[in-house]
């Protein structure tokens, strides 16, 4: 048969899957990384992701412009982050509890407002055919890369540089590592944390827009199926480093594509096991890199889980 790649289809599908599936995970984990580097945890990004998916899709349906959808998703995400940040700025408020409340609020609102948008078809975000050099349609499909994926890589690099070498980056880190030191410097930790949470929310909103406007490319209530939660967990896996967030998201996306790819070449037994691959992989790496003798390397000092 023509174009039968045999076993080569598996690594190709894993590569293609990594590129397709990783983008929302990357954006959410970058957003969460920013928030956590400022010393707060926002568990509500799953809700922000779902709401961003809905808001982006609805805007694209109404205006006909997918980029307007991305913009509105980012704005909506920022508002969710801002609300989380402001509430957590009050005394004796637990950021984890607020995060869970925001997650439920985000998904609930998204389901409520998203009802009329399940049926309409929105325009998709454009993608760049990096596979033009190949004659093989599978390669062309795998290398059909969305602009937001590239934006995610760029964001990871910019954040990596920004957190190291710019004044705002250093301010963010000092607030995250020691509230007392930040106060002594004349900084206002609550304001900076709120801004970091809002920015983190905007990232998650963009991740949601990718889900509904590119892949899988439609709004429905099961669109996220917990990806936002996994992305939050991946931040620990990535040790709060932006570039590591990118690799973690890529690994997670690729591992998720393994199950369908293996079934498609005829490895059909035990697919439930293959579907657990991303989670097993995450667990494995966490166990391998953990140590009973020291705290988590790279963890911001003010995080409520490390205090």
């Amino acid at each position, binding site marked *: *048969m*023509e*174009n*039968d*790649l045999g076993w080569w*289809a598996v690594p*190709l*599908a894993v590569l*293609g*899957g990594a590129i*397709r*599936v990783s983008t929302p995970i990357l954006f959410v984990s970058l957003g969460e990384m920013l928030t956590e580097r400022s010393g707060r945890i926002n568990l509500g990004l799953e809700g922000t992701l779902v709401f961003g998916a809905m808001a982006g899709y609805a805007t694209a349906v109404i205006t006909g412009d997918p980029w307007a959808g991305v913009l509105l998703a980012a704005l909506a995400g920022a508002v969710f982050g801002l609300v989380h940040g402001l509430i957590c700025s009050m005394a004796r408020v637990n950021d984890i509890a607020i995060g869970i409340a925001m997650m*439920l*609020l985000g*998904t*609930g609102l998204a*389901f*409520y407002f998203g*009802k009329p948008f*399940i*049926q309409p*078809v929105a325009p998709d975000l454009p993608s760049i055919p990096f596979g033009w050099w190949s004659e093989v*349609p*599978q390669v062309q*499909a*795998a290398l059909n890369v969305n602009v937001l994926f590239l934006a995610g890589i760029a964001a990871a690099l910019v954040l990596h540089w920004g957190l190291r070498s710019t004044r705002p980056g250093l301010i963010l880190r000092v607030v995250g590592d020691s509230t007392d030191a930040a106060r002594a410097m004349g900084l206002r930790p609550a304001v900076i944390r709120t801004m970091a949470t809002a920015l983190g929310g905007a990232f998650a909103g963009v991740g949601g827009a990718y*889900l509904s406007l590119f*892949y*899988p*490319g*439609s709004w*429905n*209530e*099961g*669109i996220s*199926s917990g*990806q936002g939660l996994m992305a939050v967990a991946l931040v620990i896996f990535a040790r709060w480093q932006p570039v590591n967030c990118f690799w973690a998201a890529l690994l997670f996306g690729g591992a*998720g*594509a393994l*199950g*369908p*790819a293996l*079934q*498609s*070449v*005829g490895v*059909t*037994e*035990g*697919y*439930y096991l293959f*579907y657990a691959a991303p989670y097993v992989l995450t667990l494995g790496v966490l166990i391998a890199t953990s140590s009973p003798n020291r705290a988590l390397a790279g963890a911001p000092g003010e995080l409520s889980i490390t205090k």
Partner: protein
Amino acid sequence: MTVFRPASPRLSSPSLLSRRDLLRGTAALGGMAALSALPGAARAQAGLTVGFIYVGPRDDFGYNQSHAIGAAAVKAMEGVTVVEEENVPETQDVQKSMESMINLDGATLLFPTSFGYFDPHILTLAPNNPDVRFQHCGGLWSADKHPANVGSYFGYIGMGQYLNGIAAGHVSVSKKIGFVAAKPIPQVLLNINSFLLGARSVDPTITCQVIFTGEWSLAVKEAEATNALVDAGCDVITCHVDGPKVVVETAAGRGAFVCGYHADQSSLAPEKYLTGAEWNWAKVYTDMVTATLAGEAIPNFVRGGLADGFIKMSPLGPAVPEAGRAQFEAVKAEIEKGGFSVIKGPLKDNQGNVVAADGEAFLETDPVLEGMGYLVEGVIGSTS
């Protein structure tokens, strides 16, 4: 203070305080007397209140939408009030939904439409509510095991997948077709087998690749599965998941043809859509409600196929060639006449075991098919 029943059907959202919760709270405040008088009062006022419960959203281009279309037809009937609730998980939640439809809305006929609602949820409530009729979609009701006020209904949609297969067989160039399936339960396996056997009635060399996603609604995994099938060379894709929208859009986006399922998805991919196996619950539901209004009993075990109007086919798409149209219509007419078997010998499963001996044939009505546990020869896939 006696009427708590809302006049119109409503939506409820799972994460917010629903109207039902609010009502329940208000009723409790209203005092025990009002509360105990409620069911009787509500029941006496309405002619018949019918409750529909869906496992997902009502407009999913799929399973739940097909039922909601049926519910809308019931809503249009004289003397009937319809209450609906969507996104109800197959857990304790469905028992609460059913209880509040019975006690607060006065519903006496319930259609909990998802497979997993049956055991243990309907079976728990039915003995305590002998005046309420529980009609469950897809369950295997049997007189010696289950209460008499529980009924089961379903349609022979495997026949529709057989017709899908015929259309696919005439269009496929790679001689490889694909199936995105949720879980390996008998109904799904029968659909996969029927799809391939339909295609093989056109060309016996065709194979069908199946990918199980493991859940009824997982958008990303369904898209990945569709991509993997197209990568593997499948050029016609169909599915059995709750909302086929993602599969249809992804497959058409990759240039593959699609056959629909549950509802009509032709508007999502007008050029690539061949045909589809659709439910026609409007007829089933209005028949059952008409019988109830007339005081007649609904049979406990209701099944029907193309001929009975339980299922129907989407109109053939522009890509199906003339020969395909002719065979499609001829076989459809034969199925409607009755006596047509998809599963007939000699037939082996894909492990090499004989599942139908030479000369053996199972009619669509044969209950043996509702316990199917194999994939036929030519299907690349495994049930576990």
